[in-house]
């Protein structure tokens, strides 16, 4: 079929499909004939990830991880061959509904995998809630996805923003810190991480004396660092990522605060930036669901296989992509590859125990990982594991009624 014919076909199908969707309220209401058709063909997996822009490397790592999970199963999931359809979401929330619509309506994918940017995640939620398509999110930590906006067909293999900082409360208490300042970018992810920390810290009797924000994605911290010095808290907790994180770590050192007021953070503060910051990050402690030096069999095997296949070192994003592949495999195996039995696939995924490089995890009722959070310390160029900071931490999933 030529490209043109396909387009016309897709467009007609789209019109019919949209009428059907308007009527359908629950998942799994596809016609029997469609079921039979779906079983014969390849399984269509839509990858909606950033392949250009700031988050491009994350999109590639997730894709690699996912493909590694498929390769390990002989290039098939539950006996079904896979056809990948990729869409570059450009980390642009404004285009999110349009992009995910392309996958769902035009390409008729069986499952959507995506994405990195939290704003785009919420755009996907908007469309996928209506269409009922299976969706596995391998990164974006927006709380609402497995909170107020949760749905039976929504799954996440990464983290909620809340999870990444909640365990820090315990950590700070154990170190004898009674007061803390939280500093981050002023946007949803930063605020959710602040909330997660505040809750955990106050439960332990600590006091969050000040929340400092700088507009996203600005990296001028001088005035805020001066403010921190004048408050003199016992500890500083930070969330920044990528270039912003590198800049913050360097400025923290240049302002002379390093060594005076201990710095903690969500793990993203020190992930992927250690080559760029020299000794500015040395000794910084963070919590995350993955770490260097976990020293488990599964992790070693994964790292080796990943490095061999892609000539790259894996990171937390690759693990999340890999687990997305593992979770989908578990769901499909429960129905022997009959993806049209959506309820069966969902049950299969809900029951799955994922043997991940990060350690074993299961899904919460709201379909977010219940997982161990590690305390990590920057030693040289590694985020060395210091042990588990919180065993089997579950997101509270506030507002989720499903």
């Amino acid at each position: 079929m030529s490209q043109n014919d396909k387009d016309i076909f897709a467009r007609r199908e789209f019109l019919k499909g949209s009428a059907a969707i308007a009527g359908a309220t629950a998942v799994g209401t596809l016609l029997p004939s469609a079921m039979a058709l779906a079983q014969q063909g390849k399984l269509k997996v839509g990858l909606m990830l950033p392949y250009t822009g700031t988050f491009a490397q994350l999109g590639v790592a997730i894709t690699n991880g996912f493909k590694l999970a498929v390769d390990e199963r002989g290039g098939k999931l539950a006996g079904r061959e896979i056809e990948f359809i990729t869409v570059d979401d450009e980390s642009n929330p404004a285009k999110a509904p349009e992009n995910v619509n392309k996958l769902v309506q035009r390409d008729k994918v069986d499952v959507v995998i995506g994405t990195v940017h939290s704003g785009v995640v919420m755009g996907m939620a908007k469309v996928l809630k209506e269409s009922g398509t299976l969706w596995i999110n391998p990164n974006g930590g927006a709380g609402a996805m497995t909170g107020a906006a949760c749905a039976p067909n929504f799954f996440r293999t990464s983290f909620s923003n809340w999870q990444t900082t909640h365990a820090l409360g315990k950590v700070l208490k154990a170190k004898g810190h009674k007061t803390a300042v939280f500093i981050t970018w002023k946007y949803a992810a930063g605020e959710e991480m602040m909330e997660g920390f505040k809750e955990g810290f106050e439960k332990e009797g600590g006091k969050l004396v000040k929340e400092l924000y700088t507009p996203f994605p600005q990296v001028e911290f001088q005035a805020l660092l001066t403010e921190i010095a004048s408050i003199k808290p016992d500890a500083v907790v930070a969330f920044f990522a990528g270039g912003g994180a590198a800049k913050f770590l360097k400025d923290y050192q240049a302002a002379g605060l390093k060594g005076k007021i201990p710095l903690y953070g969500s793990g993203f503060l020190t992930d992927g930036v250690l080559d760029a910051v020299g000794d500015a990050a040395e000794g910084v402690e963070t919590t995350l669901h993955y770490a260097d030096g976990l020293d488990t069999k599964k992790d070693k095997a994964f790292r080796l296989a990943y490095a061999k296949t892609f000539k790259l070192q894996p990171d937390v994003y690759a693990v999340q992509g890999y687990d997305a592949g593992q979770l989908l495999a578990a769901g499909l195996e429960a129905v022997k590859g009959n993806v049209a039995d959506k309820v069966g696939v969902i049950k299969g995924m809900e029951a799955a125990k994922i043997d991940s490089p990060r350690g074993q995890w299961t899904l919460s009722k709201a379909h977010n990982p219940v997982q161990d959070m590690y305390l990590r310390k920057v030693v040289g160029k590694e985020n060395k594991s210091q042990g588990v900071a919180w065993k089997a931490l579950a997101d509270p999933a506030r507002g989720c009624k499903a």
Partner: protein
Amino acid sequence: MDLAFFLIQLLNGLQYGLLLFLVSSGLTLVFGIMGIINLAHGSFYMVGAYLAWSLASMTGNLATAILLAIPLTVVLGMALERLLFRHLYSRDHLYQVLLTYGLILVFEELRSLIWGDDVHGVAVPALLNASIPLTENLSYPVYRLAISGVCLLLALALYFLIQKTRLGMMIRAGASNRDMVQSLGIDIKLIYTLVFALGVALAAFAGMINAPLSSVTPNMGSHVLIICFVVVVIGGIGSVKGAMAASLMIGLAETFGQVLVPEVAGMIVYVLMAIVLVWRPEGLFGRK
């Protein structure tokens, strides 16, 4: 906030203000002397930062990179004036807005083609990579002090150039009466080319010396541009003195705003601008 920290925040604000002056002084000159509204001014700032980054990673030294980059930006400025801006002196501001808006898009895409879309950091030169302890737990990076010093020197040089030199006299005369200057046999076209190139070089230079502090990112010119316009409008179009006063004002307002009233920090400068314009529509040092 006790006195010591108040003084340090004051220093932060002044340092930011001085840098702002460096970018906006070029804009106000071009604005005031040639009557050109130039939206692409922020792009020159961006070009400067990217030049500094790429040349520094080639030569391994920021100072060398800056010395190499300055002549390049002067040439860029002269070329742009000759080829594009020259055609707009007599035209309505509307077309200047339009042309320079198009120029922004061109610069952004060329940047993307030449240097890519990644965010880069530039290392602080080893010589200046130190901090001076100010209080028990806070130190001040030497590099920040150094660039403040450079900004001050340049401000003095600019003042001297415009007020005390023959060239400055011709520039001032050209601003108020173009035809008269021309009839006196002064090559006004050449003066315009020089002024424009000076403006470009100042903005680019600000981008270069600020690269280690602000990172080098796509669209970095856009935020700077708007703030510069606010500086120029508050200070009064064409007034270098006004640009200095307004820059320091905004630097302080943003610094203290961020700390004291973070919720509305982004708006403060614009509120400030609205107040000034209601009170003095021609700006603080503008001519009626």
